[in-house]
């Protein structure tokens, strides 16, 4: 069974074709608008929506041309219905529904965060329920318990900025380009441990929530005071990156450990853009402790992509109940998967 996946929730247009029978991705195409939004230091929703319209068909054509398959060969179409930015989501929904309509194929609505999470199952097929998941991306920081497919209990989440957003904002303060995560990761390698004393907000709170806004502000003060003394050298930038990244990972790691212990789970699945961070992966694998394991999708499948939508569409195929109406759910909660 061939499922076409369409992702347009933010600033990447992702299209992929997944073969459920062979558990294989036939093709995947991705167009990232990051350079465009880089000018503004963050995603401009209207511009993102515009670019999705322009890039969609050329990408779709390329995918089918390169794979030698015909569009008519597909069996279903899956698209991101939410959460995400309304304008960009609407573009993907319009294409998905119209293609389904034209080809008389079923259309499956996919929850973007569930897709991030399930993609780990594609790359690690022997994953077994129940498990803990830590979703860390540009818009979310969620710790949830997964009892079975489609059943998510949110244990905690960020009370202010998402961790990816904190990476992006910190990068912006340091004059680094958008998206900031990969930039900070790169600089951190050269960075050294300093005595900046960046806070780990609410790390010891008796819940599973996160907070990154105070960390971001502390970085801002530090950067400003460093700037007063001297020009921000490459070396200083690297040190700030290192210290920031360490603080952010500490918070994620600490609450994850607590949840694993409290809920008697031994595996945590990490996904979302920040899960592409190598230092985060290294520390999770070394510091969770014996008997615990961390599982990830492939690096290329952590940030937004069409393959995760196609794969999730296949997993959800029997639950699909989409009609011809084109509409999206920008604030769709993971706990309300069933009522998209």
């Amino acid at each position, binding site marked *: 069974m061939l499922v076409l996946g369409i992702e347009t929730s933010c600033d990447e247009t992702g299209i992929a074709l997944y073969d459920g029978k062979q558990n294989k991705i036939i093709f995947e195409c991705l167009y990232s608008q990051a350079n465009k939004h880089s000018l503004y230091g963050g995603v401009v929703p209207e511009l993102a929506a515009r670019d999705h319209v322009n890039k969609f*068909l050329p990408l779709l054509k390329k995918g089918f041309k390169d794979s030698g398959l015909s569009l008519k060969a597909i069996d279903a179409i899956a698209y991101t219905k939410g959460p995400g930015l309304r*304008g960009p989501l609407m573009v993907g929904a319009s294409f998905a529904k*119209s293609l389904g309509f034209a080809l008389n194929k079923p259309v499956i609505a996919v929850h973007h965060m569930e897709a991030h999470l399930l993609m780990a199952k594609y790359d690690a097929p022997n994953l077994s329920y129940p498990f803990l998941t830590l979703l860390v991306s540009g818009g979310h920081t969620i710790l949830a318990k997964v009892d079975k497919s489609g059943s998510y209990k949110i244990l905690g989440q960020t009370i202010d900025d998402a961790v990816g957003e904190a990476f992006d904002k910190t990068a912006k303060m340091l004059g680094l380009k958008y998206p900031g995560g990969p930039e900070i990761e790169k600089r951190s390698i050269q960075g050294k441990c300093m005595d900046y004393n960046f806070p780990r907000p609410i790390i010891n709170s008796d819940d599973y929530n996160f907070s990154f806004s105070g960390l971001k502000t502390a970085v801002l003060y530090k950067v400003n005071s460093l700037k007063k003394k001297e020009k921000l050298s490459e070396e200083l930038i690297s040190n700030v990156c290192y210290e920031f990244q360490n603080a952010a990972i500490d918070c994620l790691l600490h609450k994850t450990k607590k949840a694993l212990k409290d809920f008697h789970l031994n595996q945590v699945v990490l996904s979302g853009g920040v899960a592409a961070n190598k230092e985060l992966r290294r520390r999770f694998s070394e510091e969770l402790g014996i008997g615990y394991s961390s599982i990830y999708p492939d690096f290329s499948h952590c940030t937004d992509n069409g393959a995760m939508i196609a794969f999730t569409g296949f997993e959800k195929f029997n639950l699909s109940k989409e009609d011809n109406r*084109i509409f999206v759910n920008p604030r769709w909660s993971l706990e309300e998967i069933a009522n998209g």
Partner: protein
Amino acid sequence: MSNFKNILAIETSGLFCSVALRSGEEIKYNFTEKENEHGLVILDFIDDLLKRFNLEKNELDLIAVSNGPGSFTGLRVGCSVAQALAFANDIPLIPLSSLAVLAHQAHSKFDMKNIFVITNAHMKELYIGSYQFENEQIKILEKECLISQEDLSNYVDINSTETLYVGNGITFLENIVDKNAYKNIFSHASNMFKLIDLAIEQKSYVAAEEVSPNYLSGEEQWQKAK
């Protein structure tokens, strides 16, 4: 007349979604008076029209879409639906100016030669376009553009009896002398076929991916707002 027997017309540039289908000589249409429901209704509208003509989806020969200027979301829904249907059926598309569509609609209804279209672009701005109809042809007198409400008086001669002013932007005209020279009308897909035929004659149909919304307001706006 042409080898395009079954032609679908999509109009989503304004507040109201309308879709029309011409098969041979006959035109049928669907429209909603609910505002901004383009996405919710458009595919069911098309489905219903095909059924009323007893046509299969793959029997469409050509799709025309009013691609702007107008509601950004409406334009994206209209263009994406048109692109997807055209691509899936391997048929061409015709993009039409939403202002020209409205001008033509006014011309055929009120039999005036000169039509000036003014539609509300919100944020104190307007889209305008000026057209002349002669010998079954449409001529653009003033290039379609986005202007600020304050500037409208510079484009409009309120004493004119030669020109008919139409569109939901005419409410911003002040000191109107002859009320009959101003019509607040909305464009409707069933009125797109004359322009479609002209476009077919001029072979101005294109491949699906060559059509995109014409917003008339570019990225500079965001660059400024930065």
